[in-house]
Every structure is written in structure tokens, then in C-alpha cells.
């Protein structure tokens, strides 16, 4: 470790325990284990994944030590200060104190992956220009040792001008205590010396900054000289005169591209440092390399990709069934019990038909959603998702995007909201927006309940080889979503968002065994988000729908008048007739009938139409609404929702849920944008109303047209 300074007790610490709160910013390359280390230090939960650019939000945490608390900030991973994606710019702006509303960091903890110090040292050398107290956490030290990389930490510290380096392993916890101890003294560190990788640049910039005055830090001058910050370039030209600046540039870079010159200088030095401090320089890592190579061979890789997808959908359907049955039985029993306890009245109807039937019909999909997320989290954490962007770059190029759009699109299978935020790794704004418009087409987990309900009700459970028809239909719906998304990207990239060919430069992480604890924490988080939604938004929607369906109550005299001729019918039939009549004249029925004409061409009656309309804020509401509507209007509570849908009829006795109608409804759900959260995220990320409005109008229209075409042609064929 670094030489400890002589123990001197500051005056302010004598007698009183000070709660000094130093703010330490964690910064490092993507995949350097920064977020995992952050979790280990703060105990805060947050997302860490195995592909570049996942940490898109600013994460703040507190490291609680016996005598003081340190405030830690985790930033998105970057490779250099010349960042060109939105994500990297956020990190760079925070570090350089250019982010409004965020204080300039007072000290830096630079996280370097011991198996990738070549690239890590490049960023470190740039960061030393900031002249802030700096420490290094050398992560994955055990993985490095396992692959035969031995780093002489003391020698490296010396080469870096005395920057303290702490080797740690976030998995075993090795070295964490030393690091924590070190962090308590970070503010007492002297600012780093001139970095040794390119002293000419640093010294020139230092002299100029002193000459230019207090507004100019050394790093500002460097960025102006390298032409990585346009505003600074202009200012420097203005203050020094453009001829003098050009002269300085010529002396430093000759005629090379400034950033290229910087990479050449710094990496040349880094290469010599590594030769002195690292025992072995493997050309490539053995760990997981064989697997990586095999899964990257063109054909096995593509085949594997589809097998993995198919397996996921098969599992989602077959593994979840016992659990779903149990939940279904439990909610049915609860509803029956409530009615038995309270008798038939408004309160029991509210609890049984509104709350239990509405929320229960969504909660039932929890097992499927957990299984889907389990797969997605494992694929993410193992590094497979990053591989797919390499693999799919060619495909994405054919629609005008790059492999960088693959991860946002794949994570959209879970939820479009984080996936729209994940588009920040895409450098070009046009490509980023095109990806945002395509991502909501991917089948998110909220679409799963409606797919599962309709498929289970109307697609026969017929085995087809080692798969079954239901699984294949579900897979087909996912394909439909992908085609919709890719088609949209192609359309936009060849019209409104036409631009230069996107670049595709991506560091590929190795395969790693996913950490069980991390997977469990993430799964738990996802599950609780779903349950929270079911308990709030969906609960509220179910309640509103129940009120609309239950009121106004039909006048008893009025009802008797309408059914006077059926006096002789059995009491249960009588009840049926009454509830059907009640529903039809309720507010919901009235609203439904007003909008029905819009949806009749799709084969939807007023009940389906009003459920779909109620689903616009959040699409999984539609299942809850159907649950409530069909519970209110049904005779037997022991029937499942699927059976009730099968029994639904038009007034003239025709079946409502015919195959063409169901297929149309599925297509509508595959393409329609029924998610207020997605719209809000697009609004925030594009900073304009134009794109969310476009996305909503466009997706709703093509969902409607798709359903119309399928229903109309399907009905023609089947008659």
C-alpha cells in the first residue's frame, strides 16, 4: 500500500467525533466490477449487469464506518473522457463538474479490472489530469490470479506516482476492509503528480491554465487542445488567439488527429508499464474463452440464440402451470368465501368481483413473469446478451441500426422502460430514437398475461414434437413483435431519421458465471415491482371498473317489468339474467356501447372494447378488467376467466371469441402501445412530446389495422 502519512490529529477531531461526509466518486471502465464493488461498500441494491452501459442512472450510497460515514456516487462506465454516447457524456459531465445540480467530485475511486489493466490505466491517466485525490481499487484480483496474471501492486503504485492501489475481490470480500480504511483517508491525499504517460501535454496545459486564470483547470485546457469540448475550443481560441493555439497543437500532435495522438502516447507508456509490473500478458483469457469462441461461430451461435429463445417460451408456459393453478384456485376460493360470509350485496360484490377477481387475474401471471425474468437476468449477467449484439450486428445493419441496438431491444422483452433508458449507449441521436421507437414492439412481460389468457383459452394444448402448439403460438407472437420493431426501425431510418451509417465499436466481456445472490436480488426486485403494480395501478383500475359496472343499480320494478314473462324460470337463471341486464345498463355498459362501433369491425363487443380502452394506461389492466366484467356478469364463480370468455355470446347468440377475433386481438396487443410509463420515458429521454405522440399514434394505428385485416379476412375464410 501507499506510504501512510504521519499520524497527525486535526484540531477539529479532538474531543468530538466529527461526522465528516466526504463524497467519493466511483469511476471505471464498463464491466470493471464497479457496480458490484459499490454494492459491497454501501449495501445498497442496484442493477449491475455484464454488458457495457447498464448503469444509466446516478447511484448514490453511504459507506457506514464505525466513526464516520462516506458518501459514494456510482457512475456509468466509461473508457475515456472523450465520450460520445449520451451515457458516457453523463459520466464525464459529472466528473468534470459540468453537470448542473451536481457538485464537482471531491475525490475519485478509480475501479480497474485486474484482468484488463491495459484499458483501465488509460482512463486512470486521463483522470489524473483532474488533480483530485485519487485511489485505485483493483477488482477481480482472484480472477486475475486464476488466469495466471500476477500484478506487482507496489511497482505499479510507484509507476503511477504514488497513487494508492487496493487489490480487492468483490466476490470473496478479500481486501475490502483495507480499501474501506484507505477511503477514510482519501481527502488527506495529495493531488496526483503530472501523469507520466504524456508529460509534455500535461505540462503545456498546466502552464496555459496558470496563464489563463482561475476559470481554466488543467483538464479544461487539455480538452480544448484535444478538441473534445467544442465550447472550450472556441474559448481558448478567443483568449489566446487561434494562431498560437494552432501552433501549440502542431507542436504536440504534429499533424495527427489529437485524440489518436493521445491514445498512441498514453498506450505506449501503458504497454511499458505492464511489461514491468505484470508477470504474464495473456493474448486472450482462458476463462470461458472456449465457450465464447464456440458460441460466436456464426452458425452454432445463431442456432443457439433461437434455441435459447424457444426454451424460454416453452419454460414460461409449462413450468408455471402448477403455480398458476394454485393461485387461481386460491382466488376463486377466496371470492366464494367472501360471498358466503357477507351474502349478496354491494360490499361482497366489490370485494369478490372487483378486488379479488381483478387483482387475482393479474397476480396469477407472477410465476410466468418470474421465470421470464430469471432467464433474462441469467443471460444478462453471464455476458450472453453482449455476445448477441456482436452476433446480430449484421441483421441490425440491414434495418439501418447497429449491434448496439440489440441489448435495448432484447431487454425490452422484459420491460420497455429500462430498455429505452439503455439506448443511451447509442452514440447517434437518430439511431437512438429509431431504437426507442422499435423497442416497445418487443413483447414485454406485461403483454404476457393477455397472451397467456387468450392462448390458454383458445389455442388447443396439442403436442408438436417436443414443443406444443401453445408454446409455438406464443413464440410466433414474439416474432411478430420483433418484425414490427425491425420494420419500424427500417421505415424510420429510411425516412425521418435518415443519417450516416451507425458505428459499431463494442468491447466484448468474457463469459462469467452469474452470481447467485445478484440473480436472486434482481429477481426479487422484478417480482416486487410487478406485485406493487398489481396492488396499485391495477387494483385502482379494477376498482373503477367495478364501480362503473355495478352502478347505477337497476330499479327492481324496472327489472321485473323486463323479465315478467320469465317468472317461471329457475332462481339461478333469473339471477343470471338480472346480472346481465344490470351490466348492460351500467355506466360501463353505456360507455362500452358508445365506443363499440369503433371496434365492431374487429369483432369486439362492448365488453372487450371497454376492457381494451381501460388498458391504455397499462396493458395488463385489460386482464383485470375482463376478470371484473365477466365476474360481475357471470353465473358461476368457480369458472375460470378463460371458460367465461369461451361462453361469451353476441345478443344474437353468435360466439364472440372466434379464432379470427382472438388472433386479431393478439395482434392488436403485439403492436399497440398501451403503456403510460413507456410514453413518459420516451418523453423524458427524447426531451420532446413529438416522439411519444408519434409512437402512440403509430403503434395504435397499426395494431388496429392488423387486427382489422386478420379478423375480416379470417371471418371471410371461415364462413
Amino acid at each position, binding site marked *: 500500500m501507499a506510504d501512510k502519512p504521519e499520524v497527525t490529529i486535526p484540531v477539529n477531531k479532538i474531543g468530538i467525533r466529527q461526522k465528516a461526509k466526504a463524497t467519493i466518486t466511483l469511476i471505471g471502465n464498463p464491466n470493471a466490477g464497479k457496480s458490484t464493488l459499490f454494492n459491497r461498500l454501501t449495501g445498497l441494491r442496484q442493477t449491475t449487469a455484464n454488458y457495457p452501459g447498464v448503469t444509466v442512472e446516478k447511484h448514490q450510497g453511504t459507506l457506514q464506518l464505525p466513526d464516520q460515514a462516506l458518501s459514494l456516487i456510482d457512475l456509468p462506465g466509461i473508457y475515456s473522457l472523450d465520450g460520445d454516447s449520451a451515457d458516457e457524456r453523463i459520466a464525464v459531465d459529472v466528473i468534470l463538474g459540468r453537470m448542473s445540480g451536481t457538485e464537482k467530485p471531491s475525490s475519485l475511486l478509480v475501479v480497474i479490472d485486474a484482468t484488463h489493466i491495459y484499458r483501465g490505466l*488509460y482512463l486512470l491517466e486521463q483522470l489524473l489530469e483532474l488533480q483530485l485525490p485519487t485511489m485505485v481499487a483493483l477488482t477481480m484480483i482472484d480472477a486475475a490470479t486464476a488466469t495466471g496474471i500476477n500484478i506487482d501492486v507496489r511497482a505499479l503504485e510507484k509507476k503511477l506516482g504514488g497513487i494508492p492501489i487496493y487489490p480487492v475481490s468483490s466476490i470473496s470480500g478479500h481486501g475490502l476492509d483495507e480499501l474501506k480504511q484507505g477511503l477514510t483517508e482519501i481527502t488527506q491525499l495529495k493531488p496526483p503528480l503530472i501523469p507520466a504517460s504524456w508529460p509534455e501535454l500535461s505540462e503545456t496545459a498546466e502552464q496555459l491554465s496558470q496563464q489563463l486564470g482561475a476559470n481554466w483547470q488543467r483538464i479544461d485546457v487539455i480538452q480544448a487542445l484535444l478538441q473534445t469540448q467544442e465550447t472550450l475550443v472556441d474559448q481558448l481560441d478567443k483568449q489566446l488567439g487561434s494562431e498560437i493555439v494552432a501552433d501549440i497543437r502542431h507542436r504536440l500532435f504534429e499533424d495527427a488527429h489529437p485524440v489518436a495522438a493521445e491514445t498512441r502516447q498514453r498506450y505506449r507508456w501503458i504497454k511499458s508499464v505492464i511489461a514491468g509490473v505484470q508477470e504474464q500478458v495473456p493474448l486472450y483469457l482462458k476463462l470461458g474463452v472456449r465457450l465464447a469462441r464456440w458460441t460466436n461461430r456464426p*452458425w452454432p451461435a445463431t442456432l443457439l440464440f433461437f434455441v435459447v429463445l424457444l426454451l424460454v417460451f416453452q419454460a414460461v408456459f409449462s413450468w408455471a402451470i402448477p403455480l398458476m393453478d394454485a393461485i387461481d384456485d386460491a382466488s376463486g376460493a377466496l371470492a366464494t368465501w367472501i360471498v358466503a360470509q357477507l351474502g349478496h350485496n354491494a360490499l361482497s360484490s366489490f370485494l369478490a368481483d372487483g378486488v379479488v377477481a381483478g387483482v387475482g387475474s393479474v397476480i396469477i401471471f407472477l410465476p410466468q413473469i418470474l421465470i421470464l425474468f430469471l432467464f433474462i437476468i441469467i443471460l444478462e449477467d453471464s455476458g450472453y446478451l453482449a455476445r448477441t449484439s456482436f452476433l446480430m450486428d*449484421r441483421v441490425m445493419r440491414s434495418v439501418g441500426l447497429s449491434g448496439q441496438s440489440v441489448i435495448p431491444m432484447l431487454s425490452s422483452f422484459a420491460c420497455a422502460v429500462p430498455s429505452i433508458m439503455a439506448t443511451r449507449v447509442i452514440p447517434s441521436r437518430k439511431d437512438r430514437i429509431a431504437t426507442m421507437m422499435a423497442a416497445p414492439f418487443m413483447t414485454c412481460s406485461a403483454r404476457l398475461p393477455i397472451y397467456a389468457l387468450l392462448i390458454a383459452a383458445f389455442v388447443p394444448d396439442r403436442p408438436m414434437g417436443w414443443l406444443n402448439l401453445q408454446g409455438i403460438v406464443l413464440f410466433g407472437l414474439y416474432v411478430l413483435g420483433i418484425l414490427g420493431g425491425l420494420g419500424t426501425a427500417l421505415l424510420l431510418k429510411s425516412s425521418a431519421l435518415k443519417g450516416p451509417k451507425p458505428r459499431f465499436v463494442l468491447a466484448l466481456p*468474457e463469459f462469467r458465471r452469474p452470481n447467485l445472490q445478484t440473480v436472486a436480488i434482481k429477481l426479487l426486485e422484478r417480482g416486487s415491482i410487478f406485485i406493487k403494480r398489481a396492488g396499485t395501478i391495477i387494483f385502482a383500475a379494477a376498482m373503477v371498473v367495478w364501480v362503473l359496472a355495478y352502478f347505477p343499480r337497476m330499479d327492481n320494478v324496472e327489472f321485473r317489468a323486463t323479465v315478467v314473462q320469465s317468472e317461471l324460470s329457475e332462481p339461478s337463471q333469473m339471477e343470471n339474467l338480472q346480472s346481465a341486464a344490470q351490466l348492460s345498463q351500467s355506466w360501463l355498459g353505456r360507455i362500452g356501447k358508445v365506443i363499440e362501433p369503433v371496434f365492431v369491425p374487429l369483432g369486439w363487443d362492448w365488453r372487450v372494447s371497454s376492457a381494451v380502452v381501460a388498458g391504455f394506461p397499462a396493458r395488463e389492466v385489460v386482464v383485470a378488467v375482463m376478470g371484473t366484467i365477466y365476474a360481475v356478469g357471470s353465473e358461476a364463480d368457480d369458472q375460470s376467466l378463460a371458460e367465461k370468455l369461451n361462453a361469451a355470446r353476441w345478443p344474437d347468440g353468435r360466439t364472440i371469441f372466434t379464432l379470427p377475433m382472438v388472433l386479431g386481438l393478439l395482434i392488436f396487443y403485439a403492436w399497440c402501445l398501451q403503456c403510460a410509463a413507456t410514453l413518459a420515458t420516451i418523453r423524458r429521454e427524447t426531451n420532446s412530446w413529438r416522439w411519444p405522440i408519434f409512437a402512440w399514434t403509430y403503434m395504435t394505428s397499426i395494431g388496429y389495422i392488423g387486427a382489422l385485416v386478420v379478423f375480416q379476412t379470417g371471418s371471410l375464410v371461415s364462413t
Partner: protein
Amino acid sequence: MTLADLVPGDIAKLESIDTSDPGVIRLMILGMVEDIIVHLQNRAIGGDPLEVGFFGSSVSVRKEQARHFKVTRMTKSG
């Protein structure tokens, strides 16, 4: 000979780099500078992009940018 001409398994030394392409600058920031030894690990379907390894890590490089890297092949390991 350029990086784009290598086949999987080849090991080569980067000799000179044409920096006119902004994508190439990004690759240089990731550490692909003159005089380092690279290993062509894989190619995706259709031979593009390439997976290039150096100093223990891998980077995805499109053919379009790979053409800007002049290389000398050192060995050929099947």
C-alpha cells in the same frame, strides 16, 4: 494486408492506422494502437463484424473499420 484480411486464429501486429474514420478513433481509445499484437478470435455470420483480442480483452470491429488497420501476420494457428 489489413486486419480485415485475417482469418480466425491469426495473430498479427498492428503496423499503421488510418485515422480518418471516427470509428477507428473509438477503437484506438479502446487500446488498438500501433505496435500491439492482436488475435483474430472470430467472425460473425457473413464474416462481419470481427472479434479482435488484445491484452486479455476482446473488441467487436466492423470490416469497414478493420480495413483501416495495416497489419503483419505473425503466425497462423489453425
